[in-house]
């Protein structure tokens, strides 16, 4: 157990090193000229009002531009409910399992 | 075309039919088995006739970019004829041998299936088809090996499977390499790789040798064969002396003449090494056989030795060598089957399975022992028998191919064969002690076993006295490749 923990620790340190190098390399935080602020984001910002009628751009994206994702998101929630029920309601006989 | 389909499907249909027949109806089953075996024989004779007449039979299919074809040529036809003809004898012998034994239904069912598969090996027109039937042959004969269902049989079966499946895997690799380098896989149209020399060809030949060598029981890969002798005697006779091992030998002949071609093979280092592997196997096999007390094991090691005769002939790369190989294939198959039948008869009637207890058997079973004696002479390669001619051409071929030490090996091996079996015959006729159970020569059961044995011996003698009977077939093979 101890040896395994040490192994994981070493692995985590390795990951941390790469992560730090990556962090140093990533586009600087909070700049308006970063790659993410491209034409995609611009259209969401400028077009949300006219194209979807929502003031809140996040809602516009969630429920209109990327509504398909949100459909699956509700499905995830639905799945989780089903899974919880199927896990906990083991049927007749209370907590007994066969 | 119809003949080809008939030859191939007859066994499979019969096998499936037997599998669904009720176990109790043994007489009906025997009739069905006989009917479909004869059907297969008729089909294969018809195929042979057509091929010798120069017709081109071809059944081809596409398997996802891989062509898959059945196209018998003279060599395949010879193998097919040997297998199908001997199958009939074996089936009749089995009616006697298996009578009253357990698990008859799977036995006949798989025997017929293996018949189809063996003919498939013989008639396959490209490497993919050959690989398919080669692999199927392993799987269909496995239940026959474990026919006894004893622990020993199951162990032997596992060994059989592992050796052969591993061999098939190596073979698959070799085939893939051939496909990548040669661009095609069909046998028709000359050697596949004749186009040019490549560095890896030595390795390819090595892989092919290992792949087919497992079934052909080349010496370091032979260990499954003695183990598989736990099977019932007809199975040992047919499959492990003829059909299965010939599939390997046949594959090697294919590799030499259809995949590489004699020209290319002569340039390869491994190709030059092969005759010596074969020669080593010949000698080692028979020497090991000398030390076996159990009769079937002795025969098994002798099989290993004799299979390499055929290889030896093929690898001399000389027309006479090839002729000798084909002649040996025919003659040896007939006599070895008869040999095993004799051993089976002896064991069934007197319970003797060991050389050391053979004394006096000749007195109680004179006909069987006479057949035994004749086949022994055949194994040595004496004149009035078919194997003589094979050996003669092998000797000629090795000398003509410039490898005269091989001829010496052949002669020595003949001598060792004599040492191996003549004393057994002498002991059987001369020693006093009588084996305990009373023999029952004369019943229908024994007649069913004895008749095919004697008939085979007669055929062997006939081939020795009138070699012209088989010569046209041999000639066709030699003409085909040279």
């Amino acid at each position, binding site marked *: 157990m101890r040896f395994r923990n040490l192994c994981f620790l070493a692995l985590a340190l390795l990951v941390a090193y790469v992560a730090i190098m990556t962090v140093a390399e990533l586009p*600087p935080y909070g700049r308006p000229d970063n790659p993410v602020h491209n034409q995609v984001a611009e259209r969401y910002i400028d077009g949300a009002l006219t194209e979807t009628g929502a003031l*809140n751009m*996040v*809602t516009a994206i969630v429920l209109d531009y990327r509504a398909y994702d949100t459909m699956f998101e509700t499905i995830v929630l639905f799945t989780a409910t089903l899974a919880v029920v199927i896990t906990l309601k083991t049927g007749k006989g209370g907590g007994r399992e066969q | 075309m119809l003949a080809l389909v008939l030859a191939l499907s007859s066994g499979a249909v019969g096998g499936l039919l037997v599998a669904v027949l009720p176990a109790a109806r043994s007489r009906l089953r025997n009739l069905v088995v006989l009917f479909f075996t004869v059907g297969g024989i008729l089909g294969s004779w018809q195929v042979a006739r057509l091929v010798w007449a120069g017709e081109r039979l071809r059944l081809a299919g596409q398997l996802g970019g891989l062509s898959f074809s059945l196209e018998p040529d003279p060599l395949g036809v010879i193998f097919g004829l040997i297998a199908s003809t001997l199958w009939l004898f074996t089936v009749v012998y089995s009616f006697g041998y298996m009578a009253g034994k357990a698990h008859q239904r799977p036995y006949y069912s798989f025997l017929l299936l293996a018949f189809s598969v063996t003919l498939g090996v013989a008639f396959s027109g490209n490497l993919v088809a050959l690989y398919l039937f080669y692999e199927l042959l392993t799987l269909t004969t496995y239940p026959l090996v474990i026919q006894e269902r004893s622990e020993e049989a199951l162990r032997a079966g596992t060994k059989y499977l592992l050796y052969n499946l591993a061999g098939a895997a190596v073979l698959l690799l070799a085939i893939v390499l051939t496909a990548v380098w040669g661009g095609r896989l069909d046998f028709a149209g000359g050697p596949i790789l004749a186009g040019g020399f490549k560095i890896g060809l030595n390795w390819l030949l090595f892989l092919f040798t290992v792949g087919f060598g497992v079934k052909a029981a080349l010496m370091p890969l032979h260990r499954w064969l003695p183990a598989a002798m736990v099977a019932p005697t007809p199975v040992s006779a047919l499959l492990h002396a003829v059909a299965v091992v010939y599939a390997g030998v046949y594959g090697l002949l294919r590799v030499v003449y259809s995949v590489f071609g004699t020209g290319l093979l002569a340039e390869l280092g491994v190709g030059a090494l092969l005759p010596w592997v074969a020669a080593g196997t010949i000698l080692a096999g028979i020497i090991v056989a000398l030390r076996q007390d159990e009769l079937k094991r002795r025969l098994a090691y002798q099989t290993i030795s004799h299979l390499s005769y055929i290889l030896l002939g093929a690898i001399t790369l000389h027309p006479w060598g090839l002729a000798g190989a084909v002649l040996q294939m025919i003659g040896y198959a007939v006599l070895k089957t008869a040999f095993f039948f004799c051993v089976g008869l002896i064991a069934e009637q007197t319970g003797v399975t060991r050389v050391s207890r053979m004394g006096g058997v000749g007195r109680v079973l004179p006909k069987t022992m006479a057949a035994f004696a004749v086949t022994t002479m055949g194994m040595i390669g004496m004149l009035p028998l078919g194997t003589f001619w094979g050996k003669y051409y092998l000797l000629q071929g090795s000398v003509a191919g410039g490898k005269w030490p091989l001829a010496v090996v052949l002669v020595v091996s003949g001598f060792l064969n004599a040492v191996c079996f003549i004393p057994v015959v002498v002991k059987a006729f001369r020693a006093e002690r009588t084996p305990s159970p009373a023999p029952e020569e004369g019943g229908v059961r024994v007649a069913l076993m004895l008749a095919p044995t004697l008939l085979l011996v007669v055929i062997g003698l006939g081939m020795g006295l009138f070699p012209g009977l088989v010569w046209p077939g041999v000639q066709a093979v030699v003409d085909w490749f040279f």
Partner: protein
Amino acid sequence: MPYTALDYWNLVLLLILVATALAMYFIKDLLHAVIVFGAYSVTMALVWLQMNSPDLAITEAAAGIGMTVLMMAVIFRTTRREE
């Protein structure tokens, strides 16, 4: 780039996040760990408010604090709290 007050405020929040995350590993009492997780969620919601994502902040507050922590607390009524 000089830090503004907002950045320092952010830094403090992030440090709290790291500290609570570490604390969660070491705390023995599971209920306490869950409470710390609640603190972690609140801090996260604040961070997101700082990062101009009020939608996320509200959702995190509802989901992370309300839902997850409450669920875990409900679970502790049946299972053992101690590690």
